[in-house]
């Protein structure tokens, strides 16, 4: 079987995969990084969102061999070096940006990509950016609030719902 090599969360990893092995399978089953979730497996829900060379992608719709040599970041790479929650993760906790939590890894990765490109997004920009991430609990209000809070903006005027 062909071999794939990449850096995942700063660590060089490699493994044998099939041509049809998806990036999300390589991460979850090959590397044990089960924080990246498979929600729909049809590239609609965004729960499997990870970063490849800094760009967010749906890892259920990318072949592992197609990102050979890439730098990949998953939700496991979002915590601070001391193990405490990263800024965006903490904001999701503080603002109740998750209910069942299934979509949360994808939401955090999508939010991180947005804030890297646009450090102070408007609410409309956050909602537009999160179009490819579905929350089956429909908890969007607090997810958007958490992303705005993570950007350092004052969200005290936004009602909790």
């Amino acid at each position, binding site marked *: 079987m*062909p071999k794939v090599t990449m850096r995942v969360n700063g660590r060089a990893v490699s493994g044998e995969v099939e041509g049809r092995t*998806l990036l999300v399978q390589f991460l979850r089953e090959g590397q044990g990084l089960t924080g990246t979730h498979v929600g729909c497996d049809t590239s609609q829900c965004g729960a499997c*969102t990870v970063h490849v060379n800094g760009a967010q992608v749906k890892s259920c719709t*990318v*072949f592992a061999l197609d990102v050979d040599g890439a730098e990949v970041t998953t939700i496991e790479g979002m915590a601070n070096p001391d193990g405490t929650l990263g800024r965006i993760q903490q904001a999701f906790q503080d603002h109740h940006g998750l209910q069942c939590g299934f979509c949360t890894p994808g939401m955090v990765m999508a939010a991180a990509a947005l804030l890297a490109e646009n450090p102070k997004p408007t609410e409309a920009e956050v909602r537009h950016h999160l179009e490819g991430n579905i929350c089956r609990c429909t908890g969007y209000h607090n997810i958007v609030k958490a992303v705005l809070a993570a950007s350092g903006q004052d969200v005290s005027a936004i009602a909790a719902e």
Partner: protein
Amino acid sequence: MYAFDFVRPKTVADAVKALQAEDAQALGGGQTLIPTLKQRLAQPSVLVSLTGIDEMKGVCRDGDVLVIGGGTLHATVAREARAHYPALAALAGNIGDPAVRNRGTIGGSLANNDPSACYPSAALASGATIVTNSRKIAADDYFQGMFTTALEPGEIITSVRLPIPQKAAYVKFEQPASRFALVGVFVAKYAGGVRVAVTGASNNGVFRWTEAEAALSANFSAGAVKGLKATAADLIADLHGTAAYRAHLIGVLTARAVAAAG
């Protein structure tokens, strides 16, 4: 998915060679092909990924023409075409969602020719030239019906040459679940006249609305298309909208695109 071999050549020449294998299939960004493979609707022997071919990536200007490599991501077009062809950049920046835009490519979209995709309307309205590894194809000859193009098996879109219009805009009415265009209209005004291309609406795929083109070439204003009905095309009727509804949307969105083009 059925099993297949996977290759990722670094040059167009190597990709063309790899695609000569029996049942070989080119892979762009995979945002359509991978879901298709998961449903076992395709069974290639070998997937030839085009993502490693640097000579097929990038946006550059050649006089009055914007040249986009066939392997260029939607996200890249959204960023890099803005200064040259803002309507095209806006179209690219609203395809799917951010993750899709970071994988999907212009060449992949045009090769697939989904009847509801955005890019075919831009290529047709711009009178683009589709450049492949072996020839150049005018957009008017390239689109040949739903999921059908002039491409021969194994032929790769290496770049797309889009003449830059004086004014242009793309407006789509999104199907809310898929975010594909229920109807999308691209209007482009050139010195030689106006071109109007409609996506999402016809069973024959993207098409030019020639009556609107004539009216807008004489008078480039939203009012010029008032009362015009796009009746010639074989319009799609499905659970999202009747043919009459789509015909109505074509008129409304064309007027909006003209207004947006300014």
